[in-house]
């Protein structure tokens, strides 16, 4: 019987093509959309985590209240002791960071200001032997010209900043900022490289320095503004929350990634959006396929009548229609999933550069559209594709039960 149905599907293109195209298209779009949203959200989460939020983050209570002003006088002191303690309690990857603002001054030969710009600075551990920060931030990939700092007193700045200040590599620059005690800090650095991350916030007026240099320059010996913790397997809300609920300190605040930058709401929203999109898709497909089913019911009126007359029961006929629908559904969904995954794979591996479109965006967002294929990607479109064909046919096929066998001779005799 399956062979008979398959033959029918192959011989009669109208029976198979239209539903297959509809399903394949819908499934492809759903799969691609899903992968895209996964890509965007995991990209977004990942970038935010690495640059700013960590999977969990520790600050002092006071610092946390006004963190956006980078109040380094409220930093974590006695850093090494605290870090040892926290590493023992929570054996995940902990790193210390300092954020700072200031003025970067480029002197000419006569030591007079040639160019100047306000800058935002980030201090990472760049120089210690087994630092994880260079890999985490993909700093080597971000280098456009020159190299990363390898010695104390060296910094890299964004390519954009370098261009606007017309700096050549190897030039000296003076950072003017304020120390943790509120005094003026003036420190000379050597610019050894320029960076471009493809993330708009990191490609503005950014300077990147080693944390020991900045601790020295800003009078922050054995201090850091933030401690970032990274889970070994990537962000997981439940795990992060568990660490947070165990953490208890009179001076320190711990936040998870979801507590910062609106990322928690963002992740929830993605989930909601996704379920809405998929429901709408299933509904729309079902309606289209129901109509297709009705049309084919009309077109195959004679066949259905004949099959009833020569002894197929209504239940058997209904089942065989459903079997046909499942076959069509599987074929369509398979094609759609493969196409969707191929497109997603392209986006995952190559991506689409949108940096022009995203100029001026404040979110920490990658300027490359990327998709991410997860296990869910394989059935997120596939299952609804089959289901909508099934629903559509099930509703359309109810007509079979309304057929009066008593009138078959009349219907089949005309």
């Amino acid at each position, binding site marked *: *019987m399956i062979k*008979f149905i398959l*033959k*029918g599907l192959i*011989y*009669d293109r109208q*029976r198979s093509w239209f539903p297959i195209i509809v399903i394949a298209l819908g499934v492809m779009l759903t799969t691609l959309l899903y992968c895209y949203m996964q890509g965007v959200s995991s990209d977004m989460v990942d970038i935010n985590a690495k640059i700013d939020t960590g999977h969990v983050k520790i600050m002092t209570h006071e610092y946390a209240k006004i963190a956006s002003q980078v109040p380094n006088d409220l930093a974590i002191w006695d850093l090494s002791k605290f870090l040892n303690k926290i590493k023992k309690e929570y054996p995940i990857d902990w790193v210390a960071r300092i954020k700072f603002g200031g003025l970067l001054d480029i002197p000419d030969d006569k030591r007079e200001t040639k160019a100047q710009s306000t800058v935002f600075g980030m201090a990472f551990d760049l120089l210690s032997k087994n630092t994880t920060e260079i890999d985490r931030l993909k700093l080597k990939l971000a280098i456009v010209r020159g190299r990363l700092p390898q010695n104390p007193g060296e910094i890299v700045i964004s390519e954009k900043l370098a261009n606007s200040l017309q700096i050549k590599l190897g030039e000296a620059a003076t950072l003017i900022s304020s120390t943790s005690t509120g005094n003026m800090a003036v420190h000379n650095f050597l610019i050894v490289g320029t960076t471009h991350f493809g993330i708009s916030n990191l490609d503005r007026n950014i300077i990147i320095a080693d944390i020991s240099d900045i601790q020295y320059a800003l009078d922050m010996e054995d201090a850091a503004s933030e401690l970032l913790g990274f889970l070994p397997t990537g962000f997981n809300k439940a795990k992060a929350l568990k660490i947070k609920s165990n953490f208890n300190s009179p001076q320190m605040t711990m936040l998870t990634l979801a507590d910062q930058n609106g990322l928690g709401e963002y992740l929830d929203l993605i989930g909601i959006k996704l379920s809405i999109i998929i429901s709408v898709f299933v509904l729309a497909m079902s309606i289209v396929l129901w109509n297709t089913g009705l049309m084919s019911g009309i077109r195959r009126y*004679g*066949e259905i*009548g*004949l*099959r*009833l*007359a*020569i*002894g*197929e*029961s*209504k*239940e*058997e006929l209904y089942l065989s229609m459903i079997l046909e629908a499942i076959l069509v559904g599987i074929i369509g969904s398979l094609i759609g999933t493969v196409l969707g995954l191929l497109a997603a794979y392209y986006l995952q591996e190559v991506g689409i550069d949108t940096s022009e479109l995203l100029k001026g965006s404040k979110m920490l967002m990658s300027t490359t559209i990327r998709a991410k294929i997860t296990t869910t990607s394989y059935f997120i479109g596939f299952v609804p594709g089959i289901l909508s064909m099934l629903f559509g046919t099930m509703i359309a096929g109810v007509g079979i039960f309304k057929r009066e*066998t*008593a009138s*078959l*001779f*009349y219907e*089949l*005799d*005309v």
Partner: protein
Amino acid sequence: MQDTLINIHNLSKHYSIGGGQFSALKNVDLKINAGDFMGLVGPSGSGKTTLLNVIGALDSPSEGSVEVLKLKIENISAKQAAKLRKEKLGFIFQTYNLLPVYNVYENIEFPLLLLQLSSTQRKDLVMQALEWVGLLDKVKSKPAQLSGGECQRVAIARAMVKKPQVVLADEPTANLDARNSHNILQTMEKLNQLLGTTFIFATHDAKVIGYLKRKVTLIDGRVEEDITLPPRGPQC
């Protein structure tokens, strides 16, 4: 001695139309024996198709009893009726009703799929049926490529392939010219003799009547006349 395959006793069939009732069949008594080659004849509206419908378990009697192959049609469920049609009855229609997307072989094979026979069994039976109707050279053709006469021969093969005990044929020659009509009638006559299959026709075609062994005339839903016809002489 002859087996009674179909025993109709005091059958009436009423349809309600508007407020009133219309009787398409009135107190029909009829016994049909194995191997019969009989026709229900009569003017249009006399109840021929209605009677075939009831015998074919497509419709149920309003009154009386109809026993077909030991099953009481008035009592059986839709499922049992479908089973009876599937296993024991063959149908031939005025307009062939072949499945257009399948080829000749597959059209004839279809009833055997419902019977869940193995593919070798199916192949043997289909080839035999094709031989009966003389269409061995058209196995792979689609219905659209066949003439009307060929289509009806495929329909006969489809009805006969499972070797049913009874074949019900409603106006099988109505769409055919004289030559094709005689051709398919001869085919059916041959199968009646070869396999002992009972044929019941509903017709007003004189060509069909010429082949019948028994003629039951219906007028206004009543059996008006029931005669056995003399064996046919050779056609000239």
